[in-house]
């Protein structure tokens, strides 16, 4: 099977400062990959680069093939079509990621309408409305009427993130990129969102790129993992192998830190 996302020798630079160096990996359809690293390791950069969303001042070289389409150096027209249909993104901060002045219903309707128009020319209000409710249902949001007519600041953080996921799903993407989707949420909500993502990805057969700095979180949702340090991939492999038997020093420190944390939690019985 051809890879959905194929990255070869990716280099990202801001001026003369390298952010990502010679990164290569690929994601096959339906595969679930995690990208682990601290802040500044370049993981979000990679995700943005994959969808061609990096600002002009950041230099990108190498090859990024998304759905057999070269992203590096592609025109906006090509990229616009690719974004959403091939890959959709869920971001970290749900409060700022949603338009504060627009009702949620309308915001979800936007990618829905776009997809329907692309597929069959016209999109009727009913069709859009139906699918919006359908999506709200899929992400397990209660009281669809209330949600549709609310503004982002009127619902909770966890609900906002579900909305963001719904919007991403609306595009029926082949690859879902989740950039630290649970970092801004409290622990209980975090668990819920993770479960939701897991379930949705399995149901729809989407590929998943899950970016995070949090080991246990990543380990729950993905099959393979890439460890990034300062923009360089230091280790890669199945989750059990990398976390169970880390080879690189950096991975070892990460795993150790997580283990200590877990132990501490266990000791206090929480």
């Amino acid at each position, binding site marked *: 099977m051809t890879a959905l996302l194929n990255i070869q020798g990716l280099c990202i630079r*801001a*001026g003369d400062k390298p952010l990502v160096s010679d990164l290569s990996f690929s994601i096959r359809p339906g595969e679930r990959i995690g990208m682990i690293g601290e802040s500044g390791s370049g993981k979000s950069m990679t995700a*943005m680069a994959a969808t061609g969303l990096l600002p*002009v*001042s*950041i*230099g990108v*070289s190498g090859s990024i093939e998304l759905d057999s389409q070269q992203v*590096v150096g592609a025109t906006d027209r090509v990229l616009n079509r690719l974004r959403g249909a091939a890959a959709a993104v869920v971001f970290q901060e749900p409060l700022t990621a949603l338009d504060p002045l627009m009702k949620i219903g309308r915001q979800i309707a936007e990618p829905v309408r776009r997809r329907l128009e692309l597929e069959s020319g016209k999109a009727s209000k009913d069709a859009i409305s139906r699918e919006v409710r359908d999506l709200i249902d899929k992400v397990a949001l209660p009281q669809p009427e209330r949600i549709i007519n609310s503004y982002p600041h009127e619902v909770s953080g966890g609900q906002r993130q579900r909305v963001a996921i719904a919007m991403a799903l609306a595009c029926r993407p082949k690859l879902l990129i989740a950039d630290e989707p649970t970092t801004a949420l409290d622990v209980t909500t975090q668990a819920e969102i993770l479960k939701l993502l897991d379930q949705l990805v399995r149901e729809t057969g989407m590929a998943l790129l899950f970016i995070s700095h949090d080991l246990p979180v990543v380990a729950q949702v993905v099959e393979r993992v890439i460890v990034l340090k300062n923009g360089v991939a230091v280790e890669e492999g199945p989750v059990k192998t990398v976390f169970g038997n880390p080879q690189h020093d950096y991975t070892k420190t990460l795993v150790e830190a997580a283990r200590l944390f877990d132990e501490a939690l266990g000791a206090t019985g929480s």
Partner: protein
Amino acid sequence: MSPVETSVSRREQRHSLALTVGLALVGVNLLVALLTLFWTPYDPLNASGGRLEAPSLLHWLGTDRLGRDLLTQLMIGARTALLVGTGAVAIGATIGVSLGVLAAFATRIADDVMAATLDILIAFPTLLLAMLVVAASDSASLWTAILALGLAISAIVARLTRILTKRVLRQDYIVASRTSGTSWAGVVFRHVLPNIWPTLSVNFALQFGLAVIAEASLSYLGLGAPPPNASWGRLLQEAQGTVYTAPIGAIAPGIALVALVIGMNLLADGLRDIGDPTRGRSR
């Protein structure tokens, strides 16, 4: 897509250039103003040449309609402008910061009243407030103008100070400081003021420029300092009638004004960038 040279380093270059230019412009004005305390090319009050002479070696900028050397008038104008700017900002800052800090500590009701009053005052353009004060006082003098502008500025400064102080007071280190025994006064001087100073100083620099322009407007309207004190605004007003025959009278003071204000604004921008290097879009 080939790597585009990042705009970061280019921006930095532009910033230091702006800062240097700003410093130069303000510095020149300052030097000229100080110089006039001791020496001017000619006597500012009496005629030293024919009326409305064109620029010559004797009079570099020519003379005004009463035969007085224009360059001298311009130099004194610099002194007036700097005096007004500094004076107004000084008054505005003193009153404004004091009020602002007090307001931040005030009880809920007092604070609301104060906030509303400040909002109303600020809605009035500085010039209008200044005109009000000048009109209320009987004689127009340099100090009236400075006082008027100072009061107008103090409202703006007070509001800014209040917001900034409140923000600082919410921080954790304030609580820490208090629990370690610092009095409220100590908190203000040791934590609040140093923290709000960077933003405030930038604001002061900007208000300086606004005050200078406002004073020029007041003088232009005839509400500013009377004759012994030359003001660029008044010079422009005098030159307006004869702009056809002696254009330089209407151009030179204006250029001087713009130069000083731009210089101050560039300085303000430079200060802002020094104080807050996190500006600019991230990601």
